[in-house]
């Protein structure tokens, strides 16, 4: 038995929750693009936005066990909400995030009633169906969404009148990174709360939860709505920092990509989505000269390899390595 099992229960739990050096190092590293790679700030902005989106998926997939193939629906709704607000004259970024959060949260809340009732294949199909449905609807409602060409006329105002959005991306990346960090803090708190424990219980054994008195459906509805809000904020960030919104923001491709990123990084570890997003998007940028077919060939092989060899993604592999090398994490 290790020292941890002899320590009292309170100390043990506190130990689980404290900030690790690796976490602090990670967040410090996110500041690097400002200093050493300013020409990549636009890419860094995209990574931060996608990382936030992946984080929201991790909350429902990695922590609660809800497999969703349509999570981009909430990202897209958030993007369009902020985009439309700007197009119609209100380009203030922070309140734009709020508008997006409300819109995506509302959709998430309504759909959560359906989601919470199903499991297994029916659940996967329903999330897929919802995503596809929204995609079709957005396509048809081109008077609202701009259809294939996307929304025109988005102009994001400066933040607090001080920070202007420019082509270089300083403001954009700072803005997205701040949002990512703040929301991450909230998510981290949530994970280590009794609610977070209940979510993991649902993931580990959904059948057992009612038998210990858990109102499982309510829990699922809550986290699903929260995840939708976060995804919506990520979408709004995209709309505001790039001043473009097109149909792909709620497409199946985006739902599938974020799923791949999360699996790559490792589910249920909060940082998995962030790492996966960074690796995936940087790699895609590096190989952007490649024909998209070839990109998906390698992603396909990667998926097969990850499932067969590293089922817990990069972070899972790292923690396995750490255990083998007896490195305290």
């Amino acid at each position, binding site marked *: 038995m290790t020292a941890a099992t002899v320590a009292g229960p309170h100390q043990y739990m506190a130990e689980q929750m404290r900030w690790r050096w690796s976490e602090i190092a990670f967040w410090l590293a996110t500041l690097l693009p400002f200093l050493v790679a300013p020409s990549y700030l636009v890419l860094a902005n995209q990574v931060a936005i996608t990382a936030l989106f992946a984080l929201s998926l991790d909350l429902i*997939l990695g922590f609660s066990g809800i497999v969703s193939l349509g999570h981009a629906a909430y990202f897209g709704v958030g993007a369009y909400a902020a985009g439309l607000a700007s197009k119609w004259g209100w380009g203030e970024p922070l309140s734009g995030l709020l508008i997006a959060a409300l819109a995506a949260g509302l959709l998430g809340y309504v759909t959560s009633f*359906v989601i919470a009732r199903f499991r297994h*294949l029916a659940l996967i*199909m329903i999330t897929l169906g919802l995503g596809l449905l929204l995609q079709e609807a957005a396509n*048809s409602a081109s008077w609202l969404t701009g259809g294939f060409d996307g929304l025109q006329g988005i102009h994001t105002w400066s933040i607090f009148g001080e920070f202007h959005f420019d082509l270089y991306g300083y403001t954009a990346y700072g803005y997205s990174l701040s949002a990512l960090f703040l929301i991450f803090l909230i998510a981290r708190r949530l994970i280590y709360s009794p609610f977070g424990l209940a979510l993991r219980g649902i993931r580990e054994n959904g059948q057992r939860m009612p038998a210990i008195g858990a109102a499982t459906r309510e829990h699922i509805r809550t986290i699903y709505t929260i995840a939708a809000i976060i995804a919506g904020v990520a979408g709004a960030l995209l709309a505001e920092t790039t001043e473009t919104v097109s149909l792909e923001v709620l497409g199946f491709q985006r739902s599938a990509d974020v799923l791949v990123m999360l699996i790559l990084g490792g589910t249920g570890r909060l940082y998995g989505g962030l790492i996966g997003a960074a690796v995936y998007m940087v790699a895609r940028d590096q190989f952007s000269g490649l*024909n998209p077919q*070839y990109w998906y060939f390698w992603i396909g092989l990667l998926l097969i390899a990850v499932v067969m060899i590293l089922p817990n993604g990069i972070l899972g592999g790292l923690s396995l390595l750490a255990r083998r090398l007896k490195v305290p994490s």
Partner: protein
Amino acid sequence: MPPVFGVLFDGLAYGMLLFLLSVGLSVTLGMMNFVNLAHCSFAMLGGYVTVTLMNAYGWPFFATLPVAFIAASLASVALERLIFRRFYNAGELEQCLLTIGVVFVSIAAAAYVYGTAIQPVQLPDYMRGSINYAGLNFAVYRIFLIGISLVITIALVFTIETTRFGAQVRAAVNNQRMARGLGINVDGLFALTFALGSGLAGLGGALAIEIVGLDPSFALTYLIYVLIVVSVGGLGSIAGSFAAAMVLGISDMAGKYYVPALGSILIYLVMMVLLMWRPSGLFGRR
């Protein structure tokens, strides 16, 4: 004759095609609970086999059909033996991801070899054109498609209901553990069923070329429709797949004819309503 019959006819043909594409997945999902999202990659393979044999080697259309079936079967056996069988007890998510990986690889491979354009196919003369009856045009190819699908369906039902093999399949779908306990070689049975189901998908892919066109995105586009048929029909049920395929095929055609602005919204709505009413599918268990 009012145009609704034309729509019904087209819907029927499309539904039959969907049935051929889906029945294999429904039975194997019901038997082993293995989520094989690469199912339509086998269909795509069948399509490309037909295209290659016809365009590069001048084979007649009908002769390519059995080859499409066999090629898809063999490919599925290879994949199953080499990779899939280790994941029968894995979680749904892993199976999804593994098979999506296979789909991506197959799409890229198809694009590499054949390019991304829709493949041209020259049907024999007697297959082209349409028959005019009571004021409506009925495409000859669709009549053929409905005919051959009905023959296959009857053969399937006959096999399932009367042969020993069929009885074993039904037992294994119904309760895998008990079937094993009764001495049925479930693993071997599954391998055979998997091969047959994939072969049918390959045949469906070959037949689909004329109706919906073949390009590398087929594996993903039609996967969605197949998944809808399978989940709405109920896992492991041939009757369910048939009913769901019909409902889907006719709804889609009707939607596109009467309310084209809706696009595919109608099928997705129909699917979700049906799934919410019966989460295990129309003919699913419990």
